[in-house]
């Protein structure tokens, strides 16, 4: 063995030194060793926003999660169902869903979170898309613009519902949980300004056309486009005008709605029976729809609202509600919407009226999807324009009557013949909205609140609340902030009355 010699030759220390250097180097240079790619079953955010495909998938998940069952968009925990029950549209028969009777009798409690968690989950998702794309280098500019536009649209859309359901709400524009976890409530006007800013950005970023996740033009209208942003902006200006009393907002609402209405190559009113079909079946009234995703189902609205042979409520968890007598009575004689959009079933000797806007109720795996969940449609734009004009902007009263008549005539009704003073017209438009937009996204409830009519309808003299078994208080117009939130974040203050 000659190792001894070798070591002697090298003076020994060199070898030790070498070994030590190797040992130390191996650790010093190895911060990377413990940094991992994401697991195969999930993706880490930085890789999500590194390609067009996965970035589009992140944006798509927001729509996807919004239309799954029991979401705020559709089904028996939706705004359409619960807020419809809270207002004068629906009659509740169910005892098995604890929150439905609470909404119905306007006796909400702060122990239930209601829509709050989902709104903020989806807001986080939208903020994550905006932030992820901002720092992304792998996503092409066109897709980045499209997705950022969609995310800003969605942020505006969600904040719009948050502010209308809860009043002042935390305005989250970041994904940083440390900021969001302690955020207090932002005044409504500031939230509206953010909504308006987001929608203007969305208008600039989004295409005129309806696109696929890959940015290719398609006949489906299930991702928002520039028209959707403009249509929502029209609604937001109208609401903001109601809130602030600043007439310039009506001007902006009028012009935004006019832009959508005048885009006749894309948008036109459909026949009543076709209004809720998916856009690719030729329904040009659709401005933005959501595609049902659960196999075997069309919309959950159709599944939950349409009655067959079983009476609503009781042990029947599918159909908890029917249309209230109040709404049935609201239709003028000859209103074809009463026939096309309301149907009835006589079960056990009782007649139940039910919303029949969506006509497909059945579940069957082989069912084709023919209906998409309508979120924004052209008829509302006419009514927004009419209401703005009735407030004295644009073409004023004559324009308002004209736009109102477009909706009335489509429903087979004669042109408006009532008084044309502002107040009468606003009343007529409110009524028209009631019979046009019922069981769609809580329109009726928000209309009553923003026009200041909620207390006279729900309380005396309307006494809707009492008729439903509740006791009305003006404070019930807003939902309670979940008590658990206030415990976790002392900066959040409860709405009065809860």
């Amino acid at each position: 063995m000659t190792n001894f010699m070798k070591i002697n030759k090298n003076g020994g220390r060199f070898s030790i030194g070498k070994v030590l250097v190797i040992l130390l180097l191996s650790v010093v240079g190895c911060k990377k060793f413990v940094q991992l790619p994401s697991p195969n079953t999930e993706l880490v955010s930085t890789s999500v926003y590194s390609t067009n495909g996965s970035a589009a998938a992140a944006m798509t998940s927001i729509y996807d999660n919004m239309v799954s069952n029991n979401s705020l968009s559709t089904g028996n925990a939706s705004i359409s169902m619960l807020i419809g029950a809270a207002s004068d549209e629906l009659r509740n028969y169910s005892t098995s869903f604890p929150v439905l009777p609470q909404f119905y009798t306007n006796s909400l409690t702060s122990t239930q979170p209601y829509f709050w968690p989902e709104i903020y989950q989806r807001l986080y998702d939208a903020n994550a898309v905006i932030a992820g794309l901002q720092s992304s280098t792998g996503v092409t500019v066109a897709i980045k613009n499209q997705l950022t536009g969609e995310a800003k649209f969605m942020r505006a859309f969600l904040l719009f519902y948050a502010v209308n359901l809860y009043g002042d709400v935390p305005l989250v524009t970041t994904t940083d949980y440390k900021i969001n976890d302690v955020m207090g409530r932002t005044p409504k006007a500031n939230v509206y300004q953010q909504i308006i800013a987001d929608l203007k950005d969305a208008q600039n970023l989004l295409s005129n056309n309806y696109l696929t996740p890959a940015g290719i033009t398609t006949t489906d209208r299930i991702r928002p486009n520039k028209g959707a942003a403009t249509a929502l902006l029209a609604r937001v200006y109208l609401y903001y005008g109601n809130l602030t009393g600043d007439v310039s907002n009506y001007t902006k609402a009028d012009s935004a709605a006019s832009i959508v209405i005048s885009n006749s190559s894309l948008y036109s009113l459909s026949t009543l029976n076709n209004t809720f079909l998916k856009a690719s079946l030729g329904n040009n009234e659709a401005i933005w729809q959501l595609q049902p995703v659960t196999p075997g189902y069309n919309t959950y609205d159709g599944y939950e609202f349409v009655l067959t042979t079983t009476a609503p409520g009781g042990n029947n968890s599918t159909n908890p509600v029917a249309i209230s007598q109040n709404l049935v009575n609201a239709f003028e004689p000859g209103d074809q919407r009463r026939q096309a959009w309301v149907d009835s079933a006589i079960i056990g000797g009782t007649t139940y009226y039910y919303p029949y806007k969506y006509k497909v109720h059945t579940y069957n795996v082989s069912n084709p999807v023919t209906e998409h969940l309508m979120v924004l449609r052209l008829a509302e734009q006419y009514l927004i324009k009419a209401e703005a004009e009735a407030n004295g902007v644009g073409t004023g009263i004559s324009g308002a009557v004209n736009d109102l008549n477009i909706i009335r005539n489509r429903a087979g009704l004669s042109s408006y013949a009532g008084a044309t003073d502002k107040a009468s017209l606003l009343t007529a438009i409110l009524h028209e909205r009631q019979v046009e937009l019922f069981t769609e996204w809580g329109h009726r409830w928000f209309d009553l609140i923003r026009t200041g009519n909620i207390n006279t309808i729900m309380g005396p003299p309307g006494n809707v609340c009492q008729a439903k078994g509740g006791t009305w208080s003006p404070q019930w117009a807003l939902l309670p902030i979940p008590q658990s939130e206030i415990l976790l974040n002392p900066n959040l203050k409860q709405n009065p009355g809860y």
Partner: protein
Amino acid sequence: MQKQMYNFYLTNFVRPPRCTTQFLLTMKLTIFILITAILQVSATTYAQKVSLKGQNVPIDKVFDQISQQTGYDFLVTRSMINLAKPVNIDIKNANLDDALKQVFQGQPLDYAIKDKSIIVYQKQAIPTIPKKEASIQQPVIVTGKVQNELGELMPGVTIREKSNPNNGVITDAKGMFSITVSDENAAITFSYIGYESQELRAKDIPIGSSIILKPSPNNLKEVVVNKGYYSDKKELETGDVSSVSAKEIGEQPVSNPLAAMEGRVPGMFITQNTGVPGGSFTVTIRGKNSISQGNDPLYIVDGVPYSSELLPNLNQIGKSGNSLDFINPSDIESIDVLKDADATAIYGSRGANGVVLITTKKGKPGDMKVDFNISSGVGEVTRMNDLLNGQQYLQMRNEAFKNDRVTPSVFNAPDLLLWDTTRYTNWQKLLIGGTAKYTDAQGSISGGGANTQYLIGGTYHRETTVYPGDEADQKAAVHFSINSSSEDKKFNFLLTGNYMYDNSNLFNIDLVSDAETLPPDAPPIYNPNGSLNWAPITQGQSGTWINPFSLLMTKYNANTSNLVGHSVLSYNILPGLDFSTSLGYTVLQTAETVTTPLTSIDPGYNRTSGSSSFNNSNISTWIIEPKLSYKHVIGRGVLSALIGTTFQRISSLGQELNATGFTNDAFLSDIQAASTITPRSDVSSIYKYESIYGRLNYDLDDKYLLNLTARRDGSSRFGPANEFANFGAIGAGWIFSKESFIQNSLPFLSFGKIRASYGITGNDQIGDYSFLDLYSNTTYPYQGILGLYPTTLFNPNLQWEIDKKLEGGIDIGLFSNRITFNVSYYRSRSGNQLVTQPLSYVTGFTSIAANLPAVVQNTGLEAALSTINVKSKDFSWTSSFNFTDPKNKLISFPGLAANPSYKYTLVVGQPITILKVYHEIGINETTGTFQFASAGGNPTGSPSALTDRNTMINTAPQFYGGFHNSFQYKGFQLDILFQFVKQTGLEYLYTIMPGQQYNQPVDVLNRWTAPGTVAKFPAFTQNFFPGFLSYLSASSSDFTYGDASYLRLKNLSFSWQLPEDWRRRLHLQNCRIYLEGQNLLTITKYQGLDPENQGGTFALPPLRVITTGIEVTF
């Protein structure tokens, strides 16, 4: 290639003089290295006789020959060789010294023998090594052999010259030795692990004597403690390590090494969760440190970190199994449990919950040894519950309906109206009353010479259960170990491999539930034609019962293979300085299928197809650990230093698929024949880990001990802001029994040590990827693509839990260590707890995995006492006793009141193992329902979960321990281990309301019957409301908890070694016949099947097992 057994110095060491010091140093180092090599590695001794013949042989060739024949190294330079004349020589069997005299005759060179080296120098030069002993006194060669008390030859015994401890040899494979000592009066010591050392003068050892060593179980001096990266002599260690030996494991008929450790290790609490083979265990070392993350110790098998958990699987018995079940207990040489900071801090972020080192058997130098060990036995449930008989059951049911004022119908009382109420089946006896059969066969071959040792062994193990049917868990294991070193002992190589293949076709569902709850009048199992009986069937409905024998048709099959491969390459660079690399790989693979044929499904369900589930999982780990260790005498003490690094990667993959839509039951195990395949789970994760660790130890006079350890860890489980962490510990010890004032005043005190340690370790069992903001796929596509949505928030600060461990201990040995006694007090405070921190919905999430400054404290006292009660020629009796008194306390938890995940379960100042339950205050004498104390102290029948759970029950053990006695009389050996635990536990069955269609323990007859009845149980009722709700409250109250303390005869082992002359006649080294028993006797007040697993109606209790066997060694 010709081996050069001597070394040339290329430098001229005589002149210039400045080189002399270099030479001297080199010489010292050379000697040191040789001694070290001889002492540390099992070495050889060479014949001292030399035969040489030749004319004009160059002197280097002569040196070479002598080296080869004697093993002595020549230390010589090339220039000296050049000076020398060729040699003419003809000698036969000459002494080395005589031979050398002849060789050096007339040469310009002379020589000196120093230890095993022959130092050559020029005649005119002054030898640089003082060779007083060699030159003035006459060295003496002592030869002989060493044997144990049974007359067996003992290889590997260390023999040293007392006055010169550097002079030492080791006995060879035949127990032979030869040592040259300075003179005939020199004292020579003989020592061997586990034996009493002997000291003899050279002149008292005639050539070829036999030296007999006596075993000494309490000899601290020779016991070496494995601490993973290094080992310490038990006497000199500053930390707290408990060990379980191969003998202790071997005398227990168990298939999981964890089962063999129960009751033996202070501070380690082990619960066997089920008596079904392959079931899971819960192991905690010194209490639970983590509120919501893993509390498993770090397992290391032969240097390779070993997963403590299995991936999700299809086995629903006993919480899905235990990975250590795939380590063969009979291949284990020792299990060392590292407990305090001193021992565990070198494991850094993984050491907080203790470290369990499992070392498998290695070959030992000696003749080839062939060992066979064959045993078989039976197992059964330790006890049955006393259940209602048929009449009592019917009485209960009828009374329930009467109380409820409900008329029994075929829907709510098929057991009364449709079933044959005269039938009686003892379901316990039928379903869990069987006899489990054990068969175990092992064989091994081991042996080796001084440089290479080997061991190869194989085991077959088959175990059935107490369930009906002959389903079995079968294991086949292979173990090998090769240990080899180069001729000069500088390079060492160790390779070990453990492979186990396990096939189990036991059920994946526990039959205990049916055994305990099926009504005694349930219908017959089989129809007259042999098919399963589902009748009677209510009109248009499915069956009125679920036939438990349908499980017999549900086939479960699990094939698991486990490989643990490990190798160590080490090289002695310089004396005292070693470089080694440990390389390890382990892979645990499982493939499972469960097939549920149509024939096993109630025909009332109108199913058209059977179904099957497939699960595949794979956990693989590799680890590379290079390290450098150094040992040097500095001043009056010895300095040991160690530095090393670790690179590790664990990958876990698992997939579960569910298949239905088969046209025929025959296709169930063919997934291609299914029309619908649903993925059930998909696991894919990687864990990477690297670190640098070190140790510095100084031992002054073998009296004052200081041990410093440190580790810097980087882990992929930690967030990017905290990827690396530092850990470390300081340990100190004082062996006061070596102080002369103690020795003079307390002569009976043979050993006394005070030790203390403090350090910081971590717990990284926080799951992979938990800090990342991950996105998952949506279930259904939208616009043709699956969405990706965020599932977790990004927490760059996520890090390990920090555990600060403090320990103080005293180790005492009395009367030559016939009595040894250890007491340790420990305190560990685990902070930076990784808990679910609740978040406002506004963040988009309800919680985030985050570190909170909550602190959990574990304190405790551990004591161990070992005594040699009787020790005579034919009879010996030794006892050992261990005791642990653990305490756990939540010291702080900021924001507990607002934390929805913990506010109902934790209380600051209380153990984290508490349960907050209602206080049951007896049965209302008027209504016959349960009453509970409300927060205001008033009785209530419907307590509030938010305000009334004010009674705390601690389910952690209050104290536990073991008591072991070992008797030996001639060839007979008897070992008895008692285990005791004081604890409160969940009692049996009280969660099922008496009166429903379930059988009950006879206790329930003590029930309320009419106003004024004072009873333990409420009125029988079969109503869901209010009876069942009331019972739910009762099951969350102190009503269902009781004393689950027990004293158990855990293990008894009796063996008889055939007398020596019989064995000699049969040419057997060893022949032992034995009887072993596990869980033989349990003394407890516990209400239920078994207080250990408290399995209620869910898990089979650990079985009573008795086996007999024979062990033979050729």
